[in-house]
């Protein structure tokens, strides 16, 4: 399948697209806080990846390589937008419809709204590191390859992100 996709077979790439789309859309949505913008960015990333497939070193690095393209697109999109636009990005924008209809967890009363506000408190670098580490469950070595940052810097960003998230979630208690 990989070989066919590299050769330009769109049908083979369609299978790859279907496999990676859920994770890529989730990441882009959490980074940008805007589902429409996330779809645009993810779409662009998939198109770019297809066109650059011959540059990928092999099938075992495909997902990570494509994810790095997505992460770059997200960073570019964020850089273009003013910080204050993000503060009002909602899980439930677009007419109040929830992007995620997630149940509240037992024994805690964390809501999507609280999570979005806590995430908004992070810098884009902290948010990126936090999402990669804890939502995407990536290892630090992979995160370093994807972001170009050093492992130590990434660990500090994750640690700081956790502190800020905890603090904001606690404020709402």
């Amino acid at each position, binding site marked *: *399948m990989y070989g066919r996709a590299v050769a330009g077979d769109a049908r083979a790439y369609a*299978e*790859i697209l279907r496999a990676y789309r859920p994770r890529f859309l989730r990441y882009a949505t959490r980074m940008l806080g805007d589902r429409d913008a996330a779809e645009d960015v993810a779409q662009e990333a998939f198109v770019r990846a297809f066109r650059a497939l011959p540059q990928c070193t*092999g*099938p075992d690095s495909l997902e990570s390589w494509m994810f790095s393209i997505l992460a770059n697109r997200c960073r570019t999109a964020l850089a273009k937008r003013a910080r204050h636009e993000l503060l009002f990005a909602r899980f439930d924008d677009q007419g109040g419809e929830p992007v995620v209809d997630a149940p509240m967890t037992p024994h805690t009363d964390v809501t999507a709204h609280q999570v979005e506000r806590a995430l908004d408190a992070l810098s884009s670098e902290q948010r990126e590191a936090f999402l990669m580490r804890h939502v995407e*469950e990536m290892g630090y070595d992979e995160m370093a390859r994807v972001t170009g940052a050093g492992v130590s810097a990434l660990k500090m960003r994750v640690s700081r992100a956790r502190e800020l998230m905890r603090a904001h979630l606690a404020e709402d208690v």
Partner: protein
Amino acid sequence: MTRWVAVLICIASSLAGSHIAIAQRVLDVTDLDGRVAPALAVRIRILADSATAVRLPTAPLIDKALEGASKRAPDDRIVAAVHSVLDNLRVARHSLGDTATDAELAAGVTVLRAGVSPDALAEVHRTLHRRSLTVSLSVLGSLVAAGVPPSTAAKAITVQANRTDDAGMLAFGRDIERSIASGVPAYRAVEGATGGMPGPIPGKPTPRPKP
């Protein structure tokens, strides 16, 4: 009479039911069908393609994916685990050489992921020469799981491999695990089982010089 016949039938049925012959065969990507979600299957297949391209076995990758799916692990975690297996298969191939069997490579992956260094794995391979590597590596992995530091476990296996056969190696591992389970420190359990190993043993307290 009818009652005794019924009893005999029950006994025969339970005996028949309790003996299960497993038609074991080497796993391949088709085993993912119906067991994991299609999107996850594609992600695993891509990794399996990568293994195939460099003549590494795909069965350990499929096995790990099926394990994760059965245990209802999140897809991303399954992919990460399969990726780790693939990465370590490459390292195991490098440490064990081109003639390593699929079973030896799989056993090598286990000990690498447990923290045994590639060099230590290569050393175990060199020491055992043509002898069964799979059993020794299996015992090595279990020793690490029991709490023996990876380098100590590798050293112990290397020492013991020259003294015993496969059955003896399994018994060696069991003895150490039982000692540790009963509260004996790992280094002492290893020392006791090997009759002393040359060189420093990680974890063993260094004797203080007398005043």
